[in-house]
């Protein structure tokens, strides 16, 4: 993966299991940076307007195989990367990503795609300056998801893998395997581990501390303050 020589922007990504609380934490980080007056851009996994329609159709009609699942998500990511992430990093933004390439690395590997192949598909993408990994015991993450929502989506639960005809059971097995993949990547990609069993506000303090100490934040302020001043 290319280093980001001369690119003024900074990239912060969050990764973790469903139910690890990562989306809450990056939302709080975003709010803080926004209210402090920094140039930020937020992007979510699987959200490219153009590609999403195809992905949705593929998922709904169960047309996807592990290979096409991988490629269509890579297409989605690349669309957001080429049109937004890359350009805004060049324009000196703080880019916040709710899930990044490591989500593909873990999920596609669990679905049986070759690890080397997946990594090479994404090898053009800049590595994050900080990747927060919200570390939570499998059981905690699962109960947060399974207690809160009754219906899991087909692919989210890994039903395409045929682990179990029971959705919840399938989800447990699938998440366990993803957890395993994340743990293997944590050192290689220098994830910053956050203990996601802590109260959310405690986690957020930690996250903000790390961001402040890693990134020279004042460089990312807007040059002009909008009128009327936000409070």
């Amino acid at each position, binding site marked *: 993966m290319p280093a980001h020589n001369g690119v003024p922007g900074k990239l912060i990504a969050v990764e973790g299991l469903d139910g690890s609380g990562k989306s809450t934490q990056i939302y709080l980080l975003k709010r803080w940076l926004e209210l402090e007056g920094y140039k930020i851009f937020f992007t979510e996994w699987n959200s490219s307007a153009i590609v999403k329609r195809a992905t949705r159709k593929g998922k709904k009609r169960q*047309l996807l195989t592990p290979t096409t699942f991988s490629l269509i998500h890579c297409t989605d990511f690349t669309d957001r990367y080429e049109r937004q992430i890359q350009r805004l990093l060049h324009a000196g933004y703080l880019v916040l990503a709710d899930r990044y390439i490591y989500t593909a690395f873990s999920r596609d590997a669990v679905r049986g795609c070759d690890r080397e192949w997946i990594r090479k598909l994404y090898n053009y993408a800049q590595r994050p300056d900080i990747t927060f990994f919200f570390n939570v015991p499998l059981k905690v993450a699962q109960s947060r998801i399974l207690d809160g929502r009754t219906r899991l989506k087909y692919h989210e639960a890994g039903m395409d893998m045929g682990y179990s005809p029971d959705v919840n059971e399938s989800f447990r097995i699938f998440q366990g395997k993803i957890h395993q993949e994340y743990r293997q990547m944590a050192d290689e990609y220098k994830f910053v581990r956050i203990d996601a069993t802590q109260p959310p506000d405690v986690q957020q303090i930690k996250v903000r501390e790390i961001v402040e100490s890693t990134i020279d934040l004042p460089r990312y302020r807007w040059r002009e303050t909008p009128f009327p001043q936000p409070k």
Partner: protein
Amino acid sequence: MPNVNLDSLSGQLIVVEGADGSGRSTHINLLRDWLERRGYPTANVGLKRSMLVSRELEAAMQGNILGTRTLCLFYATDFADQLENRIIPALRSGFIVLADRYIYTLLARAIVRGMEPDWIQEVYSIALVPDAVFYIAVSPEILIERNLRKHTVLDYWESGMDMDRSLNMYDSFIHYQKKIQKQFKQMQKVYGFQTVNGNRSPRGIQKELRAKLESVLNDKILPVAEKTIQTESKEHLFDLTNG
């Protein structure tokens, strides 16, 4: 590829490559008639024909809003869907699959648009090696004449207009097709295409294609027992995929 069994693919994968206006589709239809008359079942595949993304890909190209890399991956998704759901099943059933373009066009297009050759080859490392690739080479000047005669306009993408808007479409077409042909020439060395001179009458071209295909079929269509042994060793392109 996960969940894909590549054993005993007893059919043949025959690829015809060439620019728009090279007579590619015409010749594929003629080959199909010829094969079916002789009792061979055939299947047709081509670019942008997958159930999964063909419509979305077409819509995205109309607006020319996708980045180069995104477009490459969109095409790769379309290709993989057809590979897994049409090409491989047809080969397993012993069909002759006639591919109206294959990954080579996609590689050439990506590389002339600045994608790293290693990267795009890796993307397509999932592809099967065809039993034969026929490349119909036609000079850009003749291609222009044929395209104008048929459609009265040149296609935006086949003229490479997404790459350099400062040229008029005619010059851009010539310029772009030359670049693509250069890529094909280089790929020919690596992948061993059979180039067919397309600057002549359809009859002559078809005759040559049939003769070439005949020798491929004679080599490959063997008694059932031998056939299985031979096709089990069907390799992946670039030898880079997972086991």
